[in-house]
């Protein structure tokens, strides 16, 4: 299967990428790692008329600790995040998630910025960003993660706007990310992430709705002194997860509770 024809240009700076996107018009798209976009293009589910390749934008390939924050450049590859000593020391949950994205081949190419811009409901990093109140930095503004993800494959980005960086708070405490999938390389049917901060536990869920969610009900129960089995009962409260070929909504609610409990019990 060959993608529909499109025009293509390479950018080597943020400025150039934004200019090329502007010239491309609303049917233009950014290609970074392409690990989600190219399969969609080959199935002709996506037919951009113009691709701006940002793989040459070296200024977006960095990982910088900055005070209480970890600034991660959009062109950071999954394999880099998984192995980075800085990430493993300052935000180990991000490294843990990165090591479980797709498979080894996908992790070679796929990027952090691509995951955010693509906004698949089953994406892993968005859950971390929402539960920790991370900030998405674009070429023109800063967007809180909880406002960035608006719906399935829909973000706050303008058509010519580029994700440049994600700013996560540093978190070195106990954490775990568990995702349930039928095949090792597959997307999460449901995922549960837990991170202990000085202020208490943060709990996030993947694929329990069109955007990642923070399981505040679980967090509140934990703050009140509840043990994981009791706290996790609130994991799916108020959520309406999708039913699809992989799992029914009821099964997803069950998974959210079980994975949250296990993640809390295994957090280290």
């Amino acid at each position, binding site marked *: 299967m060959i993608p529909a024809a499109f025009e293509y240009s390479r950018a080597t700076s943020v400025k150039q990428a934004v200019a090329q996107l502007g010239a491309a018009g609303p049917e233009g798209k950014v290609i970074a790692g392409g690990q989600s976009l190219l399969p969609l293009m080959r199935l002709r589910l996506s037919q951009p008329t113009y691709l701006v390749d940002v793989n040459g934008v070296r200024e977006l390939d960095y990982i910088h600790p900055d005070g209480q924050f970890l600034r991660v450049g959009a062109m950071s590859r999954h394999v880099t995040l998984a192995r980075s000593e800085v990430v493993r020391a300052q935000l180990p949950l991000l490294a843990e998630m990165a090591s479980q994205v797709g*498979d080894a081949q996908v992790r070679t190419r796929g990027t952090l910025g691509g995951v955010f811009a693509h906004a698949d409901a089953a994406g892993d990093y968005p859950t971390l960003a929402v539960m920790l109140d991370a900030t998405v930095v674009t070429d023109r503004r800063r967007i809180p993660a909880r406002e960035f993800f608006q719906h399935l494959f829909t973000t706050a980005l303008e058509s010519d706007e580029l994700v440049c960086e994600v700013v996560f708070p540093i978190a070195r405490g106990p954490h775990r990310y568990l995702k349930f999938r039928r095949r090792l390389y597959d997307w999460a049917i449901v995922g549960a992430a837990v991170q202990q901060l000085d202020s208490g536990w943060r709990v996030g869920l993947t694929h329990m709705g069109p955007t990642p969610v923070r399981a505040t009900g679980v967090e509140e129960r934990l703050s009140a002194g509840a043990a994981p089995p009791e706290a996790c009962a609130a994991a799916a409260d108020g959520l309406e997860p999708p039913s699809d070929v992989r799992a029914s909504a009821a099964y997803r609610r069950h998974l959210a509770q079980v994975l949250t409990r296990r993640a809390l019990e295994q957090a280290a």
Partner: protein
Amino acid sequence: MAETLRVTVNGEGRSDQVEPRVLLVHYLREVCGLTGTHVGCDTSQCGACTVLLDGAPVKSCNMLALQAEGAEITTIEGLAPPGGLHPLQTAFWQEHGLQCGYCTPGFIMAAAALLAENHDPSDEEIGRGLEGNLCRCTGYVNIRRAVKAAARAMREGESAPVGG
């Protein structure tokens, strides 16, 4: 409109005119004539098309050829010197790590990337390292055995060519 792609494939520098929508796997097979890299699932899942891009494993069906600009690509044909076999090729043969063989080039390239970083992988590490590759005939026991045998041979420096 076709653009110029400059890339090194199995040690040979090339310059070709390539349409943007040409995937790397089709460039390798149809322009370079290297048909050892297979198109399997066509949906970026099976890993039969795995090649090394600057030493790292990628699914060549999931990359535009133009995105390989300036890179060094190694395909199954370039893993061993002409006429020889890489220890992984020998091991897949000797340990019967295949049945129909369609997935084999991808498995060997993914395993080559794994062994470049881990000279003595455990069963678990082999499973994780090859998670992006599917075999629909033989199962994975002999594949795992072959990777272990190759790792052993490479540690012992037994890379003497077989066959050819």
